[in-house]
């Protein structure tokens, strides 16, 4: 199976290729785009935008809804062949080691983002009609409102570990912004399948660039497009800090904060805590990586560890499989060694070690796994207290409720289990929280009318004051 480059409507076979082992003697060959080729395509991006501008946004939204069904159910073009939904699940699982169940769960998330694109965009624009993308002008409560695109392209460098993050860029073509996509090395399939579903539904093929490429090529995509999105670690955030046109989705460090008023009910929250830590194999930035409690730390840690220890490796095609293997076993080695080393520093205990069978890192079903790990820390500054890893890992730290907001640092999602109005007020005004769940909800909860991380509409469009003879427009 060859996956060539898509160059705004044109298929291009590169001489530089990467073989990816799908197992069973099957190989997917991605074609690598050199950075100059990407920049060269950007010289023609105006033509790509014109193809989207020629179609009403309402029609594009309809295409997106239709594409959702095609993504989920159809046999779609995939390079020099076609791919069924089951073929997609098997191929992606083989490359990423995500269990089939999690690939399917991610598929439903992508499907939801596409099928509910009107809701998503309505949430981002606070209810403006889609005509804003056709004319740049609409009226809200008798007020004329003018928005203009700040870019004619959105470049996205995608990760390999979370197919559902593709849902972040899906509204862009409906908003008439062409997309240039760099797939993650181990997930060349998801963005391609979405693009092919969109093209099959009616989107102009010129609106999409698909570029398997190098790190330098990824830099090119996110920095040379008028707007760019990248995913990664704190280092990625730092790397693009000088580029105001780039939005980086860095380490999540998502947290659950349990207030004084609800902490004594902790036992009823255990299922939510388990889900927050382990959903999607613990690989997402919206998985909980730290739990802050005002008391009962050890009791909660022991009970939670017992539940997490029940999550054990299963074959990738097992319907209950939750843990992901590591395609790169060296990465698992590095994470395991780091946790083991930090546990030697005073003030941290791995409570899951009391309950699980065998060590954290094990080999099973021809893969390397890291089993769920919960570390109780007595000091919020312990190196294991506020970190995140690509498997179900969390810390639990005890501190007074009043100290929590001063200790969380930059956090993607906070689920605050409280009804204390003063605490809620402080949470609502905290600058450190990107998304706030009030009540005992898992951190991985998604509401489509709320922005995920940043507001894509505000990233791609700016509002301009408009006055005078607006009625003549």
């Amino acid at each position, binding site marked *: 199976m060859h996956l060539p480059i898509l160059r705004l409507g044109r298929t291009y076979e*590169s*001489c530089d290729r990467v073989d990816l082992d799908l197992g069973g003697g099957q190989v997917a060959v991605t074609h690598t785009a050199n950075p100059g*080729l990407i*920049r060269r395509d950007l010289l023609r991006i105006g033509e790509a935008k014109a193809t989207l501008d020629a179609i009403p946004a309402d029609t594009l939204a309809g295409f997106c809804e239709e594409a959702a069904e095609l993504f989920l159910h159809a046999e779609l073009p995939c390079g020099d062949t076609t791919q069924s939904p089951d073929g997609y699940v098997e191929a992606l699982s083989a490359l990423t080691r995500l269990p089939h169940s999690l690939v399917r769960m991610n598929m439903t998330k992508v499907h939801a983002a596409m099928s509910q694109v009107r809701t998503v965009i309505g949430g981002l624009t606070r209810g403006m009609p889609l005509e804003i993308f056709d004319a740049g002008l609409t009226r809200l409560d008798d007020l004329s409102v003018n928005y203009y695109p700040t870019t004619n392209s959105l470049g996205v460098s995608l990760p390999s570990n979370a197919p559902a993050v593709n849902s972040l860029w899906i509204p862009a073509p409906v908003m008439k912004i062409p997309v240039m996509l760099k797939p993650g090395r181990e997930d060349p399939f998801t963005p391609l399948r979405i693009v092919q579903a969109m093209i099959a539904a009616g989107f102009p093929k010129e609106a999409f660039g698909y570029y398997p490429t190098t790190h330098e090529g990824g830099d090119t995509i996110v920095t040379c497009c008028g707007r760019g999105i990248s995913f990664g670690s704190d280092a990625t955030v730092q790397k693009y800090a*000088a580029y105001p046109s780039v939005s980086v989705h860095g380490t999540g460090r998502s947290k659950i904060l349990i207030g004084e008023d609800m902490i004594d009910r902790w036992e009823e929250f255990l299922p939510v805590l388990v889900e927050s830590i382990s959903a999607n194999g613990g690989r997402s930035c919206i998985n909980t990586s730290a739990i802050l409690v005002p008391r009962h730390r050890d009791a909660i840690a022991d009970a939670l560890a017992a539940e997490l220890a029940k999550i054990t490796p299963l074959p990738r095609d097992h319907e209950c499989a939750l843990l992901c293997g590591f395609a790169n076993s060296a990465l698992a080695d590095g994470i395991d060694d780091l946790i083991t080393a930090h546990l030697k520093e005073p003030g941290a205990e791995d409570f899951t070690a009391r309950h699980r069978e065998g060590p954290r890192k094990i080999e099973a079903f021809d893969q390397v796994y890291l089993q769920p790990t919960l570390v109780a820390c007595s000091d919020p500054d312990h190196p294991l207290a506020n970190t995140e890893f690509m498997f179900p890992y969390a810390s639990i730290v005890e501190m007074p409720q009043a100290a929590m907001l001063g200790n969380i640092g930059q956090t993607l999602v906070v689920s605050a289990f409280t009804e204390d109005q003063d605490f809620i007020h402080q949470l609502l005004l905290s600058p450190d929280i990107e998304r706030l769940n009030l009540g005992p909800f898992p951190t991985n909860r998604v509401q489509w009318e709320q922005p995920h991380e940043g507001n894509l509409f505000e990233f791609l469009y700016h509002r301009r004051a408009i006055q005078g003879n607006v009625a003549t427009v």
Partner: protein
Amino acid sequence: MPDRPATPEAAADALDAHVREIVRWHFSPDTGCPYWLEQARTLDFDPLAIESFDQLLQFPHFDDEILRKEDPARFIPKAFEGRPYNVFETGGTTGMPKQRIGWDDYKTDYTEFSEHYGPDFFPQGANWLMVGPTGPRRLRLAIEHLANLRGGACYFIDLDPRWVKRLIGMGEMRMAKAYQEHVIDQAATIIRHRDIGCLFTTPKLLESLAERMSLVDAGIRGVFAGGTTMTPQYVRFIEEEVLEGRINFAPTYGNTLMGLAISKKRAPGEYSLTYHAPQPRAVLRIVDPENTDRLMDYGDYGRVELTTLTKEFFMPRFLERDEAIRRQPCDEFPWDGVGDVRPFQSGTKTVIEGVY
């Protein structure tokens, strides 16, 4: 076309004869330089007894740190005493630069390069523009010599690779990009306002320049480029898109210590590059990185080893920071070639290269 041996056997014989002449030149008190005459006393063999290229393997690998530490004047052959000379420095090195002295070698190399390509490849009489590192570099004089030799003048736009390297080291990627744009701005201005027919630049600068304008429409007819890795895909991209399939392209591999290796002619649709050293003045071998006495088999990657053999400069068995595929001799160049050059160990570790 330069006068070259007709067969690999004849090339080997010519190389052995050249080795005898050059080794005797550098190790004879009448003609040699202080550095090598002093080194001769530390060797456990008599360099004057060397009869063939194979016997040069008795020398240890040349350590290029010597070119930082030693006064370049210690490399002046006695026979050249009193003749003014050029001091050249290597490309992007930071700190104390590596220096090599020279007299006419660059003219010899670039005269041969000019003769290799016919009068139409780089149109005779056309003016040249060099966009790249000038300053204390051999390349700056060499390109001007090439332009003059072919009846044209040469314009220059400088790019300081040491500053680019420092910017990248500081994480100032945006500033590095701004500096590159500053260089390209100047080059575009010259091309628009002067009659330029030929370009020398690095592939990356060439790409950037072509993003500003159609080089074909601007009157460019020949491009000579070198300096960074050019994969087959990259060569294809440059030829098909950057040069729009209508500009002659001469990719080369070279540096201050060697001169330049010309790439052999390729068949239509062939994009893999094979470079051949300017033998016998320089010899490139592809050696086993674990046992550098052993040549790699044809078709296999190994480390690039350079031996320079001119009356101006003798440098045995220098291990370049590159790796390449060992390629067969060909009709144009009846000695080994080096193919698809890339930074050493770039397949196994991250290497920063191509800063310009």
